[in-house]
């Protein structure tokens, strides 16, 4: 029982006794025994009724109010909102108590929510690689969450309570304070970078400053040393690549100049050799015996062969260095045109072409034409000794792979030498059998590989050859 309640009861009781005594004194003065007894009985009854009334009507009310104020004060002092008011009756105060209890429950729920959110925020904040400082207007660090790893934005580890001028080199603290003024003036975000020499190496930082509460700014600092290092490395690498590209370009230009010179200058003496041999054959025909004429013919055919070699080599280098286009190329139509050209050149030959229509690929039209010219040219050449030659082009599966193919029923080749097929100057036939430079298939292979594809061949001596390629 509380002091106030006790006081109320005592004061109530004392008031009753006082009233009863006054009544008794008045009764005694009447000096009538009969009246004393009657009035005393009436007085006691009145007192009892009075006390009962006080207790029921007033004291119960006083108890509730004090309970309420006690528990509210208790909650206020302990800040424990899990406490509840015990509800006894159904009167107005009890309803008020219940309402307060409901309010407390809701308060508790929203406080829980707030706490969870705060925990989450704190966890996020701690997980951030940044240091976060609250800085007062006068440059004093008020709060500080350092970055997790060893990349503190200040010279000292302990920062709270210190001024920026104590934590950073003068120039940087001046820079930071300058930005802080701008933040406080315009409520704008300020971003700046700075470097600090710590533990024997330079650290680079990027600071973002935003307004916090009144006269306080938040400075979020990230160590960008690694980033800077990576950037520098990237720039250096880029420069090196550019340098190499430039060097390569120089080489390419040189190569082009060389090729140009080869195509121009190397052919000129060959023309003289062939031309003057022919002049000899014509002007000195009567002075030359058959052997002499034969030698001169050999000189001529050798010079012509060398001219072909030069042309093919130039083609090969052009195929490697030229820029690639990318369009839809109708291989079937291309093959048909090439076949017609061959037939026009040697109309006496009986060659049956079978070309699957609609073989369209994506690639460089010029290069693919060179590739097909070589493949079909080989098929044409090596089937030259067949009475009824047959050349096919299509799309089929071979060795588990789908590929385009060019097939002939010509001389074929020994599979033991497959690896030599695509080498430069590699020939599987003598010039006596079939003329050639040994550069054609090497050119084809380069074209196919420049398209990201592969080429392979199957054949047997006397039973034709098939060249498969994928693009």
């Amino acid at each position, binding site marked *: 029982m509380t002091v106030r309640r006790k006081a109320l009861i005592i004061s109530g009781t004392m008031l009753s006794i006082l009233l009863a005594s006054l009544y008794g004194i008045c009764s005694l003065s009447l000096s009538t025994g009969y009246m004393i007894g009657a009035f005393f009985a009436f007085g006691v009854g009145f007192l009892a009724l009075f006390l009962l009334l006080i207790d029921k009507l007033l004291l119960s009310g006083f108890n509730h109010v004090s309970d309420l104020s006690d528990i509210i004060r208790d909650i206020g002092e302990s800040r424990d909102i899990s406490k509840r008011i015990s509800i006894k009756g159904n009167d107005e105060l009890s309803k008020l108590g219940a309402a307060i209890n409901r309010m407390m429950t809701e308060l508790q729920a929203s406080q829980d929510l707030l706490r969870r959110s705060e925990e989450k925020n704190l966890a996020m904040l701690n997980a951030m690689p940044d240091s976060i400082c609250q800085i007062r207007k006068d440059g004093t660090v008020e709060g500080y969450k350092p970055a997790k790893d060893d990349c503190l934005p200040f010279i000292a580890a302990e920062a709270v309570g210190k001024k920026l001028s104590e934590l950073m080199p003068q120039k940087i603290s001046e820079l930071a304070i300058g930005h802080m003024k701008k933040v406080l003036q315009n409520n704008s975000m300020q971003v700046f970078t700075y470097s600090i020499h710590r533990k024997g190496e330079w650290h680079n930082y990027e600071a973002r400053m935003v307004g916090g509460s009144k006269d306080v700014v938040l400075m979020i600092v990230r160590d960008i040393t690694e980033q800077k290092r990576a950037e520098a490395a990237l720039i250096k690498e880029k420069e090196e690549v550019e340098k190499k590209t430039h060097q390569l370009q120089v080489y390419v230009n040189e190569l082009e100049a060389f090729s140009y010179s080869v195509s121009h*200058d190397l052919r*000129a003496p060959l*023309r*003289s050799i062939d*031309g003057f041999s*022919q*002049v000899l054959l014509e002007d000195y025909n009567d002075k030359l015996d058959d052997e002499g004429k034969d030698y001169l013919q050999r000189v001529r055919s050798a010079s012509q062969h*060398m*001219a072909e070699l030069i042309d093919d080599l130039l083609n090969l280098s052009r195929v490697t260095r030229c820029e690639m286009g990318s369009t839809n190329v109708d291989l079937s139509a291309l093959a048909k045109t090439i076949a017609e050209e061959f037939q026009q050149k040697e109309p006496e030959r009986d060659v049956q072409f079978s070309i699957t229509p609609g073989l369209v690929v994506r690639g460089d039209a010029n290069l693919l034409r060179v590739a097909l010219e070589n493949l079909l040219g080989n098929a044409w050449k090596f089937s030259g000794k067949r009475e009824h030659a047959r050349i096919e082009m299509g799309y089929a599966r071979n060795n588990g792979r789908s590929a385009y193919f060019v097939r002939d029923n010509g001389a074929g080749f020994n599979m033991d030498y497959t690896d030599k097929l695509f080498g430069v100057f590699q020939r599987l036939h003598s010039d006596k059998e079939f003329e050639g430079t040994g550069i054609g298939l090497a050119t084809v292979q380069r074209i196919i590989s420049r398209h990201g594809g592969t080429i392979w061949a199957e054949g047997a001596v006397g039973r034709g050859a098939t060249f498969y390629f994928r693009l």
Partner: protein
Amino acid sequence: MDNKIIMLVEDNPNDEALTIRALKKNNDMNEIVVAHDGVEALNYLFGEGSYSGRDASITPDLILLDLKLPRINGLEVLKSIRTDERTKLVPVVILTSSKEKRDLTECYSLGANSYIRKTVNFVEFRNTMEQLGLYWLVLNVAPENEKKA
């Protein structure tokens, strides 16, 4: 038929001899003028330098022009021929070893009438020259013929 003037711009003496031989075999009557480099070619055409005093209004009926020439190269010669009123209509046939795409493109864009690649095989070359002479000097109608009168 009038004798025609063929101008050959060629620095290689062997090529010169063989080309003249090929041209003569087809038609011995034509006059062949040889310039050994670009400067000499332009001097002849415009009556300057070693050819000062030559009547520049008399232009060749056909110019056979090599590309790789000392001093002024074939492309520059072609440019000068095409920009001068006196020579801009003269048929120019490029006669060269090169079959580089950029040479072809440049020659045609500078106004060459034809582009012939010199073959190593002399018999083929002579046949080409024969066809060339027949086409440009006989079949083809030149834009102006009155100067010969």
